[in-house]
C-alpha cells in the first residue's frame, strides 16, 4: 500500500478508526490538538461519535460510560490533561474496562511548557492514580509505530480488559512521516457480550463498578487483576535492540523518539571505533526487565538517556541489579539531548568504565 505523509497526531486518529474505534471524547490541549481535530472531521464520515468535553475530568467519566456499554472508545490529551483524568483512570482499571488513552507528553511539572518531553513516564507506569492497578503502556518511536501500536492498543485493552495508554511526546504528535495502514477486518469489541451493559431483558442484570465494600471480595478482585497483569507481562512485553549482536562496552537505554537520536549517535560512535548497543522498551509497562537485564550483563556500563530528570532510570537500575553503574543524560523543559550530547555522554561513561571516575 502506498505510503502517506502524515502527522503523528492525525495518523493515530486514522489508526483508531481502522481499529474500529468509532467513539472519541476529549478536551483540547497542545501538542495533541490535531488528533481530536482530525477525528472531529473523520468520525462523522464513518458513522462515529465525536464529542468535545467540558473538561478532562468529564472525559474520563465519558470513556467509562462508553466502555461500560461495550463500545470501542479512545481519548487523547497531554500531560496536565492526563493528570486531570487520573481519578477516572483508577475507576476504569477498577471496573476492568478496555479504553485507549493517548498521552502526547509535554514539559512539566504544572502547566509548564508545550514542547516535547518524556515527563510522565513515572505517572504512566507507576503513580497514575490511587489504588493497586497498572495501565498497559506502549511507547512508539516513529509515526508508523504509533499507527501500529494504536491498533494493537485496542486489541490488548479488550483481550486483557484493562486501560491501555499510548505514551508519545510532542515530537511524535507534530512530526510527519510516511505511514501505511493495514487493511484488517475488525469485529465488535472482544468478549463484551459477557460483561457489558447492553440491556438486561432476558438475562441477569449486570453492574459495571469499581466499588467493592466487602474486603474479601475486593482482595480477591485485586489478586485476580494482578494475576492477569502477570499474563500480560509474560505475553506482551515488547522491546527493540540496536547494535547488540556485536560486543559492546556501553549499553544505552532510551524509549520513544529519544531512542532514534541515540541510534544516530551509535552510528557516529561506530565510525570512531566505539561499540555501543541500545535497548529500547516498547512496552514501558510491563517493563522488559528480564531482556534488559541480559543485555546489561554484556555491558561495562549503562547510559540511560531521557527527555526528563531520570524516570525510566529507576527501572534500568533495577534491571542492572547493582552489577554495573548506570549513568544518566537528561534534558527537559522542551529540550532534547542531541546526537552530539549523546556521543559526549558515551565518552564520559567510557572514561568512568575505565576507572576514571
Amino acid at each position: 500500500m502506498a505510503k502517506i505523509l502524515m502527522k503523528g497526531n492525525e495518523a493515530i486518529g486514522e489508526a483508531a478508526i481502522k481499529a474500529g474505534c468509532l467513539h472519541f471524547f476529549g478536551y483540547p490541549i497542545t501538542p495533541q490538538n490535531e488528533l481530536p481535530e482530525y477525528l472531529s472531521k473523520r468520525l462523522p464520515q464513518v458513522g462515529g461519535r465525536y464529542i468535545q468535553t467540558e473538561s478532562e475530568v468529564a472525559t474520563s467519566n465519558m470513556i467509562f460510560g462508553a466502555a461500560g456499554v461495550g463500545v470501542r472508545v479512545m481519548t487523547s490529551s497531554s500531560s496536565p490533561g492526563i493528570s486531570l483524568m487520573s481519578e477516572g483512570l483508577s475507576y476504569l482499571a477498577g471496573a476492568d474496562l478496555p479504553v485507549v488513552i493517548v498521552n502526547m507528553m509535554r514539559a512539566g511539572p504544572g502547566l509548564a511548557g508545550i514542547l516535547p518531553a518524556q515527563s510522565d513516564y513515572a505517572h504512566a507506569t507507576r503513580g497514575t492514580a490511587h489504588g493497586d492497578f497498572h495501565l498497559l503502556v506502549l511507547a512508539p518511536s516513529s509515526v508508523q509505530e504509533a499507527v501500529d501500536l494504536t491498533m494493537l492498543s485496542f486489541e490488548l485493552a479488550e483481550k486483557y480488559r484493562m486501560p491501555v495508554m499510548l505514551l508519545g511526546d510532542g515530537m511524535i504528535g507534530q512530526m510527519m512521516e510516511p505511514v501505511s495502514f493495514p487493511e484488517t477486518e475488525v469485529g465488535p469489541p472482544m468478549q463484551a457480550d459477557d460483561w457489558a451493559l447492553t440491556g438486561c431483558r432476558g438475562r441477569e442484570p449486570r453492574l459495571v463498578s469499581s466499588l467493592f465494600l466487602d474486603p474479601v471480595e475486593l482482595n480477591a478482585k485485586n489478586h485476580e487483576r494482578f494475576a492477569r497483569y502477570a499474563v500480560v507481562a509474560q505475553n506482551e512485553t515488547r522491546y527493540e535492540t540496536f547494535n547488540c549482536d556485536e560486543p559492546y562496552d556501553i549499553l544505552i537505554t532510551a524509549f520513544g523518539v529519544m531512542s532514534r537520536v541515540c541510534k544516530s549517535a551509535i552510528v557516529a560512535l561506530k565510525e570512531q571505533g566505539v561499540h555501543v548497543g541500545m535497548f529500547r522498551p516498547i512496552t514501558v509497562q510491563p517493563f522488559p526487565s528480564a531482556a534488559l537485564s541480559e543485555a546489561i550483563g554484556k555491558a561495562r556500563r549503562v547510559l540511560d538517556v531521557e527527555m526528563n530528570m531520570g524516570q525510566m532510570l529507576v527501572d534500568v537500575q533495577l534491571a542492572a541489579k547493582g552489577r554495573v553503574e548506570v549513568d544518566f543524560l537528561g534534558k527537559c523543559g522542551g529540550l532534547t539531548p542531541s546526537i552530539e550530547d549523546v556521543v559526549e555522554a558515551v565518552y564520559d561513561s567510557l572514561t568512568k568504565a575505565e576507572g576514571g571516575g
Partner: protein
Amino acid sequence: MKSTDVLFAGFGGHGMLMAGKLLAQSMIKQGRQVSWLPAYGAEMRGGTANVTVCISDGEVMSPYIERPNALVVMNTPSLKKFGPKVKPGGLILLNTTLIKEPFERLDCPVIELPASQIAMDMGNARATNLILLGAYAGITQIATCEEITEVIQETFTRKPKFIALNVSAFVAGWKEGVRLREEHNIDVALTEEDEDELNSLVALSN
C-alpha cells in the same frame, strides 16, 4: 546508506514548513524514508518557524538534528540562530532580499539568492518559499525538476489557482539552483555513508 537532512527556516507565514513538506513528499515518491519535524508552539506566531527534513535510503534515525547538513534560510533572525550550526562541508542557501548583512562560513559554501525579489518580479512575494525550494533542489539535484513539479501539482489540487504560480516559481528557482551549482562547484546530493549493514542492526522482540 545514503542520507541527508535540511533545515528550512524563516518567519511564521513564510511557507518554509510547506517547502519542507513538498521536498518530503517528493522523497517518498523516490521510495526514500523521510521525517518532517517542525518547531511548534510560541515560535509559530511572528517568531522564527522552521522544519527539519531528514532523508534516507534506509531507516531515518534521529529526526531531531541540531547540526544540519543544509540550511535554507529566509531571514536574518533564522540565519543568526542556525547559520553557525550547519555542519562543516554542508550548505547554506540565503535569501539575500531579506538578509542584507554579510554572513561568512569558511568551511561550507554560503550561496546567495535574491529569492524574494525573484518572486516579486514574478508577481507574488509569497512564492519565495518555492523559489528557495527550487534553488535547493537545483543545487543538490536531490530530485528532478519534474518530480517536485508533480508533487506541487498534487499538493495544490484543491487550490488550483496556486498551482501555476507555485510551479513557475519552483522552476525559476530550479534554474537558478542549477546555475549556482556550477558556479559554486557543488556535486553532492546525499551524504554517502559506508553503512550498508545498518538495517541488520535492529532486532525486534515479539
